[in-house]
């Protein structure tokens, strides 16, 4: 019996869940894994340009709204932007903390805006306390109101032991009113990030118009995969792992044949990671990945019901 050859899955990031978005503020090495697909590069540049010298953030606080369909890289973009802010503030010698509340509503996603915001606010209070990001007197005074957003957020800039920018990553929102309410709670040194797969251009317009008096939020959008995105993404991952081990190659033709068939970077990651995982699991994996391998993998995945993937 021929021993199975050991191979490397080029779409797997060591030590990182396969479908979890890149997160450079938590894993700095992720900064190099961003590929310019799904219009994310452009969106990131827009963010950097909007933030400019950070004056508005430090004086008034800001809210960043990222829209785009499911799986188009919104979370990875948010993490990249948050990481950039942390770097900027660090370079300036100022404090900056990222508070990830994106999972604060897990188990309770289908609730009213009031209840959602209360639950998030409560979780924020827990995080700030756990990480000792609030002075003791602030903890005492805010504790009774920990579920009341309008009694907590406006007091946060003064509640930290030293001047600190708080980057707050909010759970996914689908209603414009919720975004507007968060935007109105921003104060100097508070930066909200919120993403939404359900909001359309008219929703964004409504939010911007509603916030004119307080300062418009930064709105970014990501889109579906464009011409060349499949090749760009696949090539990056294949080249990046060339030195780390063996794996089936993927021809330019195969990449091109998948253009237009796979529409988001999430779908791309899921399919390629899965196909390689499946191929590398057999003792005689082929030299090349074919279009048919991709199609068969997808059907097997759906019909066999291989687990349930929920994006974080």
């Amino acid at each position: 019996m021929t021993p199975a050859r050991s191979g490397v899955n080029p779409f797997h990031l060591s030590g990182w869940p396969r479908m979890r978005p890149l997160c450079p503020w938590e894993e700095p090495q992720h900064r190099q894994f961003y590929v310019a697909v799904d219009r994310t590069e452009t969106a990131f540049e827009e963010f950097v340009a909007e933030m400019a010298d950070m004056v508005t953030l430090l004086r008034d606080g800001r809210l960043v709204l990222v829209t785009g369909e499911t799986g188009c890289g919104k979370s990875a973009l948010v993490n990249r932007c948050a990481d950039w802010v942390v770097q900027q503030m660090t370079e300036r010698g100022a404090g900056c903390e990222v508070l990830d509340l994106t999972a604060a509503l897990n188990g309770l996603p289908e609730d009213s805006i009031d209840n959602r915001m209360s639950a998030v606010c409560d979780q924020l209070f827990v995080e700030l306390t756990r990480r000792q990001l609030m002075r003791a007197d602030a903890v005492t005074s805010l504790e009774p109101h920990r579920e009341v957003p309008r009694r907590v957020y406006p007091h946060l800039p003064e509640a930290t032991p030293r001047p600190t920018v708080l980057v707050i990553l909010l759970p996914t929102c689908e209603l414009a009113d919720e975004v507007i309410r968060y935007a109105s709670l921003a104060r100097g040194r508070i930066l909200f990030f919120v993403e939404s797969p359900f909001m359309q251009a008219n929703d964004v317009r409504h939010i911007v118009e509603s916030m004119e008096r307080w300062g418009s939020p930064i709105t970014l959008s990501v889109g579906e995969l464009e011409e060349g995105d499949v090749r760009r993404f696949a090539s990056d991952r294949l080249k990046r792992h060339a030195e780390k081990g063996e794996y089936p190659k993927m021809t330019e033709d195969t990449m091109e044949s998948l253009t237009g068939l796979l529409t988001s970077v999430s779908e791309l990651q899921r399919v390629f990671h899965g196909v390689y995982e499946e191929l590398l699991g057999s003792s005689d994996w082929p030299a090349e990945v074919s279009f048919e391998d991709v199609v068969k993998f997808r059907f097997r995945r759906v019909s066999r019901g291989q687990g349930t993937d929920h994006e974080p």
Partner: protein
Amino acid sequence: MSREPDRTELFVDTAATREATSALSATLEGDSPGAQSGQVIAILGERGSGRTHLATRLLQHSRTLRYAPALSKYIDAMASDFSDVYRRLMGDELVFSAVRAQADSWYADAVADMLAERGFDHDIVRQLRDGVLLPQAVVNRLGLMESALLRETGRRLNAATGLKDLSTALVLLLRTGSDDRTKAGQRRGFPGSVKEWLAGGEPSEVLRERGITTPITSEVTALDVLAATTRLYRGRRARFLLVFDDLLVGADQPQPETLLALRTLFESVADAGGCLVLTGDPDLPELLGPQLWQRISRTVQLRGFTDDEVRSFLTALQGVRTGRSELAPFTPESAGYLARLSEGNPRATLQLGNEAYRLAGTRQPITEDVVREAARHQMIALGAAEVLGEVQQVLDLNGWAYRRSHLLGADADSRADFWVTFDDRADGCALLLSEAILASEDVAAVIRRVFAIRQAAPGAAVILAVEGLLDVSYTSGLKEILGSEPIVHAVRGFSHRLTTLLNAARLRLPPVVRDSPWTDVGHRLDQINQQQSSIFGLLEQFFDHFTGAERRSDEQLTQVLRRELAGFAGTVAPPSGPDPRVRETAGVPAEVDRLFVEASGLLEELSRFGETMQAAFADTVGEASSLILRRIRSTTHFTSAIGYAVLLRELVAAFHTGIAEWYATYPADGPGSLSPAAQERLDTLCGNYAELVEHLPAFQLTPLIELYTKPGRWADRTGPRQKMENGVVLRKLTELSDRVRVAVNESANAETG
């Protein structure tokens, strides 16, 4: 929630049932689902003609078809408006699941279309369209763009249903993870919110935030949403069958806007390839109007069984009972007689047949006499509960106050089965329920009751409802007595005719004069005054006659007086012994009984003027009698006091009877205080007495008491008397209800102890 009746064990195939079954099969069956246009089928027939039976038969039949409907639901629509029908339909768990599954199929199509457009994943596409794969699973496992697919599905649902709220709500059901994992105690999530709103509840906060702000409560909105829901099936594989049984039976005529919404529903059902079965009375076409009726694609008329079908039915019935399908023990003659009595009505045929079996026992064969006896027994017994329910429903729907089994006078015959009163009328209407009227004795019993009620409540209207069969030869005679024809429950439109008769009776009653809170009492006192006037008039006649006449035999005069007065009291009062006005008092504790005996004894004493008259006649000289009579006539308010005494005697007797009946109704079944129901009834009885005695003031008796107690006057002439003090008499009468209440409670406590 409505329940499908299960009455399918006995079935006789008729032309009508074959027609309905065939129409249903044509709609739901076929090689190309979705191609066949839908139908609205109306099944019309009199009550008991087997409408419900056929409707449920159709439901069962539909489930045997090759393309059994994905949604089939029976709703008992009797006396319901369309919003009620809608709520019961959409509030059903299975219906909600079916609607949700249909929304899933639209989502599956959107996902399949997207994958098909890409040109690969052919197998996934096929399985999605066949319903093998759930769209949520495919979206999740392939990492597809859920947001875009949900948006596209919402767009399609909106276009299909034409209702933004409905499509928005349905999309909320499609999300990955938006399922029923909400555990007890947690918030209900989208499915719970959507289900509640669809079933007619207020939209929850999460729905309002998404633009759904209107509850589905009006008839028009309910029909619109129902029509929109049926459009989810248009051009789809799945079919549906909805049965609205007894539609508009006992309900008001729909408003024009409701009819318009119904029309939309009918059109949507037809477009969607579904089937809506409506059963109702033969006047359903009139209620729906000709324009809407045109949208009914098939009408099935249920007529009574023919004689042959009755024989087949009885044969089948015998088969069910014994396993032997034969007509015996019925004879062709008795079967024919049964058919004539039931007029071929299937329900009546079944009931009569079963009752005839029961009565016959081992007597064989079943003769016409047995069938006649069965008719008397069974039609009555089965009708009684039903007619009571229908009467109550009519009264409730019209908001008329009523009392059940209300005794209007002292006579048991004066009991009204329903005593109906109206806010704007000073008197009421006695509704009498009668069993079958098939013989002169039945008619006599009704007449006795009508006369007793007329005597007890001269101004009241009287309506007679017959629960069973009515021999038409008695109809005109009863009409003369009642003022209106009796209404027969078995005849369709009972509720409507009862409503009409009650309305007519109400209009004939004297209106309430609104300027005094005591007008009702005032009217009642007017009636009492009328009765008093009659008594006084009689007395005047008697006295006038006596004054101007030669002396007559004492005995003769006493008899005349007694006879005349007895005419008012409804009975001849004996000089002693239990009050005959009071019916059975067994079970009434001695202490309670004593209070009544004491009160009635006082009144008896005060009103024993017959004996007084005897004393007068015993005076052979004649001066004494003249003196007494002059005094009587000169004593202020004497005659009025006599009238009050008579009425108070009646009141005490009625109260006594009420308490005796109370003891019979709530017998002490062991130690313990009174039950809440018993206490409430006792309070009512005592309250009624207190209220009435307040308006029959006992002080009016004062002239009698004075006359009674003054020495040398008639008290001396009539032998030994009990002690009679004005204040004591008044207290014993006015405080009787309080004393009774205390005695009853003490008696109950004594049992406890």
